[in-house]
């Protein structure tokens, strides 16, 4: 018969960890997406040559493993900038920049997918560049970019497991703490996985719903 030492309090402890995971992910995805839209639009507008410094900066965040970014980011904030900020804040900053680097590419791809003539049609009606972006380009780019963006958001949620290196006790770290104490790794990892699934599933479904709705347009 299956037997476990896991208590209700332990589950609450895991749920708190899951709460941190959700919070870090939500903050990073929101800020990262806003920055990603900004960076993506700048890249498209400036063209490859003028945007090269920005592209290089974003490439760093896409190329260097997140674990290294978190450790170095934490050291940079503490030792170079001499700022006393929490590991949680560092985690959110690094993850936001990491997200923005990927999101900028997704946004750029989405904008490039809007036919030039459709944009010309908008401008020829007297819409300004900003109105064209707001009412035509970004809504259309969003439809193209949504599946990739959902993938990015889910990826960031799972990558957020690495923020334990800056002393943030999120879901996976909470699970590890319990494993150390209870010595039931498989069962606890199963529960941890279930938590991740419960967090991810609504986002994935919501993405699917939007895609279906838009495809009916």
């Amino acid at each position: 018969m299956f037997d476990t030492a896991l208590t209700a309090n332990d589950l609450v402890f895991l749920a708190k960890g899951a709460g941190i995971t959700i919070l870090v992910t939500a903050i990073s995805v929101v800020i990262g997406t806003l920055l990603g839209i900004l960076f993506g639009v700048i890249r498209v507008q400036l063209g490859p040559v003028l945007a090269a410094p920005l592209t290089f900066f974003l490439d760093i965040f896409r190329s260097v493993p997140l674990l290294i970014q978190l450790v170095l980011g934490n050291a940079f904030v503490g030792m170079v900038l001499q700022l006393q900020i929490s590991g949680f804040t560092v985690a959110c900053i690094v993850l936001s920049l990491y997200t923005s680097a990927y999101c900028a590419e997704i946004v750029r791809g989405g904008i490039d997918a809007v036919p030039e003539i459709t944009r010309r049609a908008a401008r020829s009606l007297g819409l300004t560049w900003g109105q064209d972006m707001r009412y035509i380009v970004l809504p259309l780019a969003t439809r193209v970019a949504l599946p990739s963006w959902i993938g990015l958001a889910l990826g960031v949620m799972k990558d957020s497991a690495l923020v334990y290196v800056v002393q943030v006790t999120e879901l996976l770290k909470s699970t590890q703490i319990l494993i150390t104490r209870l010595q039931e790794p498989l069962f606890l990892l199963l529960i941890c996985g279930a938590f991740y699934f419960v967090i991810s599933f609504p986002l994935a479904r919501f993405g699917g719903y939007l895609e279906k709705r838009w495809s009916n347009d």
Partner: protein
Amino acid sequence: MIEIQNVRKSFGDLEVLKGIDLTVQKGEVVTVIGGSGSGKSTLLTCINGLEPIDSGRITIDGTEVHAKSTNLNKLRRKVGIVFQQWNAFPHLTVLENVTLAPRKVLGMAKAEAEAIAEKQLRHVGLGDKLTTYPSRLSGGQQQRMAIARALAMSPDYMLFDEVTSALDPQLVGEVLETLKMLAEEGMTMICVTHEMGFARDVSNRVAFFHQGIMAEIGAPDQLFNDPQHPETQKFLANVR
């Protein structure tokens, strides 16, 4: 009046407009014919400032299109343009496609913009498609929607860039009928087209473009029946 004076335009090393002169009076319908790459479509996009020019001058009712001081967004309200394809904003309904510019550019109230849009959509025969998305329309209906959308801005001039070229043959007629209707109503139009019958029936003047120059311009009867320029003769012999 649209005045085009000695306009030159290059894309890289390729000069696509080699000194074009053309004046289009209010109420006039000018069609532009010619082979691919003759510069016809580029001229239209230069007229409403979507493309810069290298030299020369284009003025619309006295306003120089490419002058630094010209507010192009304001000028474009006067000059509607419809392209060959990809005109529709696919995420907006037909009605929203047509009301967008009146609301955002002219600052019209929603109800007023919708009333104008409905009127224009009925005018082009799409009165029953208001809540439909463009993907549910045929190519011809999409082009008529684009025409209604341009008309909703009450333009003084309309530019048509091969608006039937991307359509299935059976859909060409409905779009040409719409253009004819506009011409009969007195709209000033410049139409780049491959439809010779349309050019002959509707135009006050027909211009033939060849490799970036306007080789010949004249009344339809003269140009089609008695073309003077050897390239015009060759072109017409091939399309007949």
